[in-house]
């Protein structure tokens, strides 16, 4: 009998959180993509923006309040969307991995303050070498089952390698700053949440063959996200769906161990 009641309650929570999650996702996805007539300059700029946004340091976690001294180690995974990298009549031979990943460390200080860091120390994958330093600082507050989080983050990226041709090495340098706010609910082991964010991007894409630098300077953009967390003792798993500007949808998964 007791087992049945627990099962019903868990099932109800599951249905409620999934409904909440689906409604939020519906509104995010309902916003239609724009369609533009194009020039090669617009194509290259859009491609640079897509790659840059995929390098953002997003939260990838429900804004759950943690006690002082808690440390979290996470593995983030990001399936890469299909990318049509054609510029003019030329298909750029950019080989992206089907999934990108990162190791991330978060520490919780007093009163809900949080610091996080992720670093890629010159990792060579395929024909590209990536170096990155990403940091974040946040504040999480809780009111009963309602959780809120405010977060600022910064990403510095350098990717060196074959991106526009197989004969030369190109270089992509990105500097991104983000601020986002998220609101979530803590229902037993499920934590649905949603949020909005703004970012500013500076990006230099050096194309060796043409010896030109495609620059994106102080590009301000917005993004929205919905997520669902699952907590089980010291382990938590997270799914986060992002919508960035009006042309990129991507999601991230993460597994976190709390110490």
């Amino acid at each position, binding site marked *: 009998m007791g087992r049945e009641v627990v099962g019903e309650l868990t099932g109800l929570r599951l249905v409620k959180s999934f409904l909440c999650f689906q409604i939020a996702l519906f509104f995010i996805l309902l916003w239609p993509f724009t369609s533009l*007539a194009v020039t090669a300059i617009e194509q290259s700029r859009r491609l640079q923006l897509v790659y840059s946004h995929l390098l953002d340091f997003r939260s990838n976690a429900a804004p759950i309040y943690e006690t002082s001294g808690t440390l979290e180690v996470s593995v983030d995974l990001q399936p890469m969307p*299909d990318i049509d990298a054609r510029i003019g009549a030329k298909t750029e031979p950019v080989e992206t991995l089907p999934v990108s990943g990162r190791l991330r460390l978060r520490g919780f200080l007093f009163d809900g303050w949080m610091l996080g860091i992720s670093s890629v120390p010159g990792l060579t994958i395929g024909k590209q070498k990536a170096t990155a330093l990403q940091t974040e600082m946040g504040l999480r507050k809780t009111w009963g089952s309602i959780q809120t989080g405010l977060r600022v983050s910064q990403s510095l990226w350098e990717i060196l390698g074959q991106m526009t041709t197989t004969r030369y090495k190109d270089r992509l340098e990105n500097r991104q700053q983000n601020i986002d706010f998220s609101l979530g609910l803590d229902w037993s082991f499920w934590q649905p949440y949603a949020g909005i964010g703004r970012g500013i991007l500076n990006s230099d894409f050096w194309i060796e063959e043409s010896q030109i630098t495609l620059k994106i300077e102080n590009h301000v953009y917005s993004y929205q996200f919905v997520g669902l967390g699952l907590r089980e*003792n010291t382990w938590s798993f997270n799914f986060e769906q992002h919508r960035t500007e009006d042309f990129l949808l991507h*999601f991230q998964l993460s*597994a976190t161990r709390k110490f």
Partner: protein
Amino acid sequence: MFMRVTYDLLLFLLSASLLFGCSKADTLGGKAPDEVVISGTPTWENGIGDLVRSKCASCHVIPFSFYSPHNTPSTLNLSVYDNSSNIRGANILGIWINSGILEKALTGVARKMPLEYATPLTSREIESLKSWSTSGSPKN
């Protein structure tokens, strides 16, 4: 305990990824380029100027744009029709189009234009440029 965690993990990853995960990048690679449609007789003032400024002068402009490759000629400005001092204007295009620069490289002069990674011309735009060139590439 281990089984419970594994079960939750599988349930979560499968439900979240399969039911909700959406991954799509709308690059502009698959989209058709802007087309400059010219009605009437094509002249520099009637459409060809807009076409050449849109499809050629993003690189062939003085001073160079950020998009001009390193070997772009430094004495050619296709954003204007007339020559000025030692800078050639778009009035020279007619000779090159009649020589077939839209189909092949002109030995010792130029590569086939537009380049592979530049904005392509549509078939109607090519016809307009050829028609303009055979009629002496007039300004008006």
